[in-house]
């Protein structure tokens, strides 16, 4: 199988079949079906059972060939006369074998050093369902599936324009995963497409089983805890990203489509922000930023203040806190770590466990990190509250992987807070900000539009400005085709004076 793909097919059918049989040795699903074409020409149809729709194959290939009134003279003749939409001519053995692995049926003719491949794939595929990781109250309910062709068709249905480009490539030595780069010509910066192609082409791994494989291999800074490539299961999110001049990468076998470049602000934007009234969307978005800070800092600030800066706690609070902490054997730092780790464990257990057991875990978890722990005198009530708030807060980040990053960063910050107090918290904030400002995603600064400062970008940062004000595309790596709508889009009655 690992011979170079330039090996041409032998023109004798038997030799050719032997070559295929040896290549597909030990494959029970490899089928050779020999038959004769009308003038008595030997022919063979090779395919892998299960991934080829045999009914279709018989109806559209075998029957027309076997019952043709006029004789076929050559492969070119067959190709010319067959009424099958997806046909491909292979000259190299390697290509033909790969094609077969990808679900094609290969027709060989005696005396022809050429194979004709028909695509009658019958992959089992999932129905289009509501995406589970990004649900909305208002908005389209369709989500991507594992099939690239279905996914690209979902996108095509949203952007019906020839400028929507889809470039296909195959990655993965053994997985031969279908990867499609999609963008809108005229909006995208051409060098971005080039960059994406270069980064994808240099990937040389044995298999791509999820888009995360690719994500990890095309990131700008592989050491960063922050994801630099976005991912989504929602066709509308992909369409919106393409309209912003970004690029999408569809990967076969996963409903998650990659989006690049991706800035930090984009992780805070949920698709529903754009489907709700802008007041609500803005309020919710500010809430998200607030709770992101809480998710990142609440336990560490609690630890720092409680073990170094007791002056900062309101007097009445410290009195009740010192009461609740009176019987706690651990220092606040240990207590915080204990609780945070327990919470993460419960969360992980909840995700990983079968659904039937999940409920039990959450009940036990609520008791473990809730009442029982307090009653047993292991943790104090305020700590439980801080952990609970933090736990909830991190789920407010719409992009799940970004939320996980934030949650993980919490631990080193707690440690620094336990060591240095608020100084440690400040130190870690500074470190994170320094890191974020230096980070880039496909050339776009990660903290855009905060740093570098772009006032225009603030319309879609902490608030979501009304649609009619969002006249420009976000400035990421360049500015092609900057205006995204006609200027006077602000609605209102035509007659200001009243009824006409």
């Amino acid at each position, binding site marked *: 199988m690992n011979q170079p793909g330039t090996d041409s097919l032998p023109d004798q059918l038997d030799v050719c079949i032997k070559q295929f049989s040896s290549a597909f040795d030990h494959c029970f699903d490899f089928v050779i079906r020999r038959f004769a074409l009308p003038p008595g020409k030997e022919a063979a149809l090779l395919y892998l059972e299960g991934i080829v729709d045999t009914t279709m194959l018989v109806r559209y290939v075998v029957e027309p060939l076997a019952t043709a009134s006029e004789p076929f003279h050559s492969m070119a003749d067959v190709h010319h006369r067959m009424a099958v939409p997806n046909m491909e001519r292979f000259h190299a053995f390697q290509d033909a074998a790969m094609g077969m692995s990808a679900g094609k049926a290969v027709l060989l003719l005696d005396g022809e050093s050429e194979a004709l491949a028909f695509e009658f794939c019958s992959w089992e595929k999932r129905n289009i369902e509501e995406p589970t990781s990004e649900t909305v109250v208002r908005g389209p309910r369709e989500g991507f599936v594992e099939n690239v062709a279905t996914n690209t068709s979902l996108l095509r249905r949203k952007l019906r324009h020839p400028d929507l480009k889809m470039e296909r490539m195959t990655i993965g030595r053994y997985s031969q995963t279908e990867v499609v780069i999609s963008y809108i010509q005229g909006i995208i910066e051409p060098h971005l497409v080039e960059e994406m192609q270069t980064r994808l082409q240099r990937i040389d791994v044995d298999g791509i089983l999820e888009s995360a494989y690719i994500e990890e291999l095309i990131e700008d800074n592989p050491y960063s805890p922050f994801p630099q490539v976005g991912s989504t299961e929602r066709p509308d999110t992909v369409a919106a990203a393409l309209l912003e001049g970004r690029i999408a990468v569809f990967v076969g076998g996963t409903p998650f489509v990659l989006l690049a470049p991706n800035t930090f602000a984009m992780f805070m934007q949920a698709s529903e922000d754009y489907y709700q009234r802008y007041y609500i969307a803005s309020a919710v978005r500010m809430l998200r930023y607030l709770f992101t800070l809480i998710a990142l800092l609440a336990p560490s600030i609690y630890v720092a203040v409680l073990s*170094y800066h*007791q002056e900062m706690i309101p007097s009445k609070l*410290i009195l009740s806190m010192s009461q*609740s902490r*009176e019987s706690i054997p651990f220092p606040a730092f240990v207590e915080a770590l204990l609780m945070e780790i327990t919470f993460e464990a419960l969360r992980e257990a909840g995700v990983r466990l079968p659904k039937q057991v999940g409920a039990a875990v959450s009940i036990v978890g609520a008791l473990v990190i809730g009442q*029982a722990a307090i009653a047993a005198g292991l943790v104090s009530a305020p700590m439980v509250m801080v952990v609970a708030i933090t736990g909830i807060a991190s789920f407010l980040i719409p992009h799940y992987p970004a939320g996980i990053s934030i949650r993980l960063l919490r631990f080193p910050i707690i440690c620094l807070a336990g060591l240095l107090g608020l100084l440690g918290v400040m130190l870690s904030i500074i470190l994170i900000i320094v890191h974020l400002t230096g980070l880039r995603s496909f050339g776009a600064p990660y903290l855009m539009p905060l740093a570098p400062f772009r006032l225009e970008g603030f319309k879609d940062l902490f608030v979501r400005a009304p649609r009619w004000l969002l006249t420009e595309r976000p400035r990421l790596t360049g500015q092609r085709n900057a205006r995204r709508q006609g200027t006077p889009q602000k609605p209102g009655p035509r007659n200001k004076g009243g009824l006409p």
Partner: protein
Amino acid sequence: MMRASVNRAGWRSGAYRSFLAALPLVLLLTGCWDRREVNDLAVVSAIGLDTDPNSRGIVISAQIFVPTPPSSTIGGAQGGGQMNSNVVVAAPGMDIADASQKLQEKLSRQLFWGHTKIIVFGEKLARRGINDMIDYLGRHPGPRERALVFVSEGKAAEKLGLGPLIESSSSENLREMAILRTGLHVTLLKLERESSRKEAIALPLVKSFETIGKVQTSVFPQGSAILKKGKMVGRIDDSETRGLMWATNAIRNGTLTIHLDKPGEMVSVSLYQCKSELIPSIRGDEWGIRIRASAEGNVVENISSLDMMDEKTILMLEKKFEAAIRKRIQSVLNPLQKQWKADAAGFGQAFHRKYPKPYEQAAADWDERYAQVRVSYDVHLLISRSGFTDKSLSR
């Protein structure tokens, strides 16, 4: 541009690596030497300072919060049973630092001054002088600048030891009452500032009282102590304190009652939007202060035959109330000027602001000059509402 960002040579350079390797060592340098758990703190909510009868030193007494762990029953997580309890611990010493060290030696937990909100000086100590104490309170990072300062009738330690009525501790009692602004509200910051600038200051006076029925003794601020050059020179009563508050623009609201000409007749107004300012003037050798005070009030009680719907009545009442306010201010300025020569109303400051040069010349014998300052009044009261009825309901 993108290329450059993708491969950063800096990441792999030797210097960078050794820097990264050295970075964790920084953490070892600091450690948690100053970490203190809440359970290891003795939270001081109030301190009292008294004279030491046995020496020239002082006695410091601290009201310390005693946390009681919550009852460990499922459901009743917090707050059941007795919520708070306090103890007062005292220790003598040469100065505050010394005394608090002695105090620390008596306690199993580290004294924590960060929540000290009340500082009470015993009357004896106040008469001996508090200026030396202020230095510690201002210099040490522990006590809060927003702590409230009081002078107590008798020993401060005894007052701190009294139980609270409604609040969680007697110090909290005092604090909440000062916040109501029924009396003076002097923070440590204000005391520090004023004691360096002004020569006299009025501090609220803490007294004790007994409740009716089941007898409980508790504390409340009433009247104030006048301190001149850090030494207490005298006391003024509640109504004089109100007068002082009128003069210093410290008054916020209150109720004022006047007797009318006919015996047994009186009217009360509830005041709000009270304002006052001191307007100094120098004419030749005569220094004068005009106290311009204004307030609005609503009639809340009318025990007379007057008709509150009559504009003339209102105008007449306004005059009478203005006179009452004026009398109040006078009642405190008289002893301040003549008896103690203590400028607690801040005349000196007012002169200093408007006439810096003449004031500085007069500063040397300000006491004498202050006693001579002629005070004039410009009080204006507006009765804006007369309540729901016109005439008295009973007469």
